[in-house]
């Protein structure tokens, strides 16, 4: 039991962060607006959760300009994907 709890990731305790990660695992990349629409959250709220996932090095981003408007694309890092996989495994163990 203790082993399992160790794999539960604090970063994914929050629903929005869990949502961001779920979306980035199954998509190569998503931009800020796509994530916002998908999760139905405000700009500020999403930005703060993205920042926190960036700080854990679970996601990375690239900035580009589309029609002179800045566009930020987010991708899950391999570290993030691994943490997510562990987290899901731990949940599955817990609800067995």
């Amino acid at each position, binding site marked *: 039991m203790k082993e399992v709890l160790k794999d539960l990731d604090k970063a994914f305790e929050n*629903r929005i962060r*869990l*949502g961001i990660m*779920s*979306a980035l*695992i*199954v*998509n190569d990349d*998503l931009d800020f607006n*796509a994530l916002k*629409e*998908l*999760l139905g959250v405000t700009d500020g709220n999403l930005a703060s959760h993205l920042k926190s996932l960036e700080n854990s090095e679970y996601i990375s981003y690239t900035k580009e300009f589309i029609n002179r408007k800045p566009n930020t694309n987010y991708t899950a890092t391999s570290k993030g994907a691994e943490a997510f996989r562990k987290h*899901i495994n731990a*949940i*599955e163990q*817990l*609800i067995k």
Partner: protein
Amino acid sequence: MKEKYIEDLKEIKDIMNRSTRFISLSGLSGVSTGITALIGVSLAYLLIFKQQNYLVYPAVDLNGKNLAYLLIIAIGTLMLSIGMAIFFTTSKTKKRGQNIWDSQTKRLLINLIIPLTTGGILSLMLIFKGYLGIVPPLTLIFYGLALVNGSKYTLPDIRNLGLIEIILGLIAFQLIQFSLLFWAIGFGLMQIIYGIIVQRKYKS
């Protein structure tokens, strides 16, 4: 505690589905394209078999003029079907407050278009070489393959419709004298039935 994690898993699944699948597919577009296909195939049937002596086995009469009419019917049916599918799906997307041209739509369209265009070009080549009879089964098969391919990016029900179209296409190939009938079943009847199923299942 346990409930929270079960909810978490549900949320993960929901987001993964919504972020990869185009779920605003309208059942009405299936029904309308089915009806259009039935009208198209009836016109084609009347054209091909119109001066038939029904006491003998129906032979297909295809001169250049009839072939031109047939192509006009085919293209007209196709245009009308695509137009209505776009109309109903766009209005459903708008109702849900979603953006029609997002990455899910693009992914779905690309995966539908590749098998469809291949089948379309091949069919045209065969028509111009005079192998008209092969075209109805072939279009069914390629349409089925396109649906199976696209189903990964939209409602999973579409996969079964695709498999049915492929099977109908293969049967139509074997029973080639009834191929127009199978074409009517596949593009007409099955589309209408699946349209109704999708419409009822995903009404909300």
